[in-house]
């Protein structure tokens, strides 16, 4: 396996994620978060999840940035009030230990693309074999989302509808 561009991509991902937390200027933090979403989209595309990469690029880097910016223009651009205390010693000791534990557990995960992993032996073969004949839809992801698992997608649509209504109820003061 070559690490020609995967390793810089992952390093950039961690750098942008840390930078968005550390930086004091909130406007910069929002823009760094947008670039983080862009790098995350590249990682999804590298892993072969093109649909997820598409959503991450459009929603994470585009729409969420616009929402954050609109919120910022109504508040303050600089993070001057929030005081960040230094982390307690217990966190400094416990979090690296937790990270090591997770790395140790990650050793037992099935290899990427392993055909015998639990995720690819349960219902995935049925979908891959029958989706085209059942639904005349070559993109299996769409067939699963919109047909086999349509109830889940309907409830997700309900969640988005509810988010729009909730923003209206909380923020709107006058009728437009």
């Amino acid at each position, binding site marked *: 396996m070559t690490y020609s561009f995967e390793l810089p991509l992952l390093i950039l991902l961690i750098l942008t994620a840390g930078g968005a937390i550390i930086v004091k200027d909130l406007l910069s933090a929002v823009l760094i978060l947008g670039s983080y979403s862009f790098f995350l989209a590249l990682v999804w595309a590298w892993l072969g999840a*093109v*649909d997820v*990469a*598409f*959503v991450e690029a*459009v*929603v994470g880097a*585009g*729409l969420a940035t*616009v*929402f954050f910016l*609109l*919120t910022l*223009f*109504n508040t303050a651009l600089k993070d001057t009030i929030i005081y960040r205390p230094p982390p307690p010693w217990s966190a400094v000791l416990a979090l690296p230990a937790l990270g090591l534990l997770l790395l140790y557990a990650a050793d037992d995960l099935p290899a990427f693309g392993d055909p015998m992993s639990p995720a690819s032996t349960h219902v995935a073969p049925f979908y891959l074999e029958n989706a085209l*004949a*059942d*639904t*005349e*839809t*070559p*993109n299996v*992801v*769409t*067939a699963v*989302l*919109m*047909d086999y698992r*349509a*109830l889940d*997608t*309907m409830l997700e*649509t*309900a969640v*988005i*509808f509810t*988010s*729009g*209504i909730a*923003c*209206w109820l*909380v*923020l*709107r*003061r*006058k009728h*437009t």
Partner: protein
Amino acid sequence: MIRDGHDSVIVRRSGQFLIPLIQLFGLYVLFFGQYGPGGGFVGGVMLGAGLIGGLLIFGSEARSSAISERILDGDGLGLLIFAGLGGLCLIGGGEFLNYANLQIPGLEEPSRRHLGIIVTQIGVALDITVAAVSIVFSLASVGEQEDD
């Protein structure tokens, strides 16, 4: 805040060129979702992003932003299309959202499922477009309270 729009000529000119392109690409992604990556979620967000871009660049008072205000009347319509199609499947004598039970004469079962996927994707896209534009209007209305 979004009432006046942007006053830079460069932003306005590039907006005039880019926004129709974004909308067209959103429609392409929406209807190409069955053959490649994409679908209702991404297509809907792109259509919404085009409308939001128009709002931010040309202002909410501009003639080109009228469609963004009118689209708020369609809140919940997308979910209604999605759930309504499920209800039609119930009426057709089967399970909820089992598109094979849509009683459309002259269509085989896979074609009915194909049609069901297209209709539900349009529903999802409509729902997300309206929600995105609605949230932007809600966020922008916070700053305007002090003017009244």
